[in-house]
């Protein structure tokens, strides 16, 4: 009896999970399908899901009109650069908060998180002006710096929770064994936290890759990443849905593939501490 109930419950949960999953994935699927339509079919009403003339012409058009690889490379440099710089700052910060906490540690962590609640547009003008005056506008360095700062709270928080799980006695043992602070972090803490650091790295690469507000507002041509590449297809001359979809597909494909292969790490990273 109880077995029958549990099977039914299992079927319902599975169905619900698939429904939610498909609902979330649907816009992406729609974008990918649209990218293979002609412009006319893309705006046809009612739209057809699969029954249309499949074409690659949008991809050729997009590649002809703009340099995908330059944007792609900018995205790679900006997302990886900001994540690595962030990690270099966050590892020592999270170490100190996890292993040498003070009365204010919790406050500092909350304060860091609270900066994520600030609407970015609120600081757009000051940052824009600072970037203009320091010549950082439309440079990859500038974007690396700004994205590092944006994602730093999340990196510190994630690392902090991972480090919290590492028994302090092991670090004390290394101190007894003569490890300096540098060797302790380099040879003991970091190798033990590799799974955690890896998922932090992955998540932040994805966040930085998809970041659109700052990348769009602080770049023009030289440092423009893939977000700007997509945006350029929604222009005053009119919307080209099919080409826009093709550009979007090309922009999200690399990160989608990365995410697919690293999903195990990512899930572990996002649920860490909740399940042991």
């Amino acid at each position: 009896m109880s077995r029958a109930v549990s099977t039914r419950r299992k079927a319902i949960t599975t169905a619900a999970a698939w429904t939610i999953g498909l609902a979330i994935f649907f816009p992406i699927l729609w974008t990918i399908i649209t990218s293979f339509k002609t412009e006319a079919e893309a705006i046809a009403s009612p739209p057809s899901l699969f029954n249309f003339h499949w074409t690659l012409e949008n991809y050729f058009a997009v590649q002809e009109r703009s340099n995908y690889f330059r944007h792609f490379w900018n995205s790679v440099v900006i997302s990886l650069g900001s994540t690595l710089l962030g990690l270099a700052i966050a590892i020592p910060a999270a170490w100190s908060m996890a292993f040498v906490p003070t009365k204010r540690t919790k406050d500092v962590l909350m304060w860091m998180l609270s900066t994520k609640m600030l609407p970015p547009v609120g600081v757009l003008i000051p940052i824009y002006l600072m970037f203009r005056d320091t010549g950082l506008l439309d440079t990859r360095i500038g974007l690396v710096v700004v994205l590092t700062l944006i994602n730093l709270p999340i990196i510190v928080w994630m690392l902090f929770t991972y480090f919290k799980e590492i028994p302090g006695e092991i670090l004390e043992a290394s101190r007894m064994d003569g490890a300096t602070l540098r060797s302790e972090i380099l040879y003991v803490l970091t190798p033990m936290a590799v799974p955690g650091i890896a998922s932090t790295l992955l998540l932040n690469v994805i966040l930085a890759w998809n970041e659109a507000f700052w990348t769009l507002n602080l770049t023009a041509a030289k440092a423009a990443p893939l977000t700007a590449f997509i945006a350029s297809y929604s222009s005053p001359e009119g919307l080209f849905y099919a080409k826009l979809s093709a550009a979007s597909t090309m922009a999200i494909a690399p990160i989608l593939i990365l995410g697919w292969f690293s999903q195990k790490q990512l899930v572990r990273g996002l649920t860490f501490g909740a399940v042991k």
Partner: protein
Amino acid sequence: MGSIQLKKVEKRFGDVVVIPPLDLEIEDGDFVVFVGPSGCGKSTLLRLIAGLEDVSGGTIEINGKDATSVPPAKRGLAMVFQSYALYPHMSVRKNIAFPLRMAGMSQAEQDAKVNAAAKVLNLGDYIDRRPGQLSGGQRQRVAIGRAIVREPDAFLFDEPLSNLDAALRVNMRLEISELHSTLATTMIYVTHDQVEAMTMADKIVVLQAGHIEQVGSPLELYRSPRNLFVSGFIGSPKMNHITGAEAAKHGATTIGIRPEHIDLSTTEGMWKGVVGVSEHLGSDTFLRVDVGDLGTITVRASGEFAVHRGDTVYLTPQAMHLHRFGPDGLAIR
């Protein structure tokens, strides 16, 4: 060389005094055990000696030199932790070599020392495994190996056997004692288990609430406990304490008599009582006897003693083993 002197050492966490000013002298080559109930400050005291905690006052001298503000690694002490604290991402070999590597020793020297330690501790078979693949006892050996290679002036053990099962604990206890007689190095050992303290120590330091209650050899503490606390803490099963008129007869506020120092008879004796729970261990029988006004008294009878719940028995304390305590809890000598 491994003499350690604590002079007026104290530790506070904020307003909470964990260890009030305390003096203690540990001589070179001693096996000293800190024993006391949970939260008595014994681990804190060990961590102060190790340098993992800063003292709030007083000085710690190692080999006659002030080491109060010397960092842990420079004190010449090695520590074995309760959780073993092995580096999970390194093989046994690398774990043991870690302190040597940190000291900048050459690879050849490291190998020689690691191999020597592995031989002493029989680690040969699993020297290339990781800690996760080892049993509790093997991990404990690796942790000891990591301490040995440093050739420290003193070893510090923080409840090293409490994560092991009972049989293994007895074995490791013997191994550590064996190690002490081989190396003849000072060892400071923290435990809450008075059996470990009694069997291993040259000198036991009984602590309660950060205070040293008594320092002495295991038999000194057993024979002449300085106060009520020590008398109750050392010895198993614990000493019976009797207050009231019976104690007054002996000119004391409390009298104490150990379960093994009471003669048991079914026909005659000083105190008459009724048997409650009895524990038959084969070699010994422990009886809980309800003696009216005196309360419940634990008695040890050697071998099998055939009585049942509800039987009447007579107890006679052996006068020469009677302990007397005054109103302040101190022994009257």
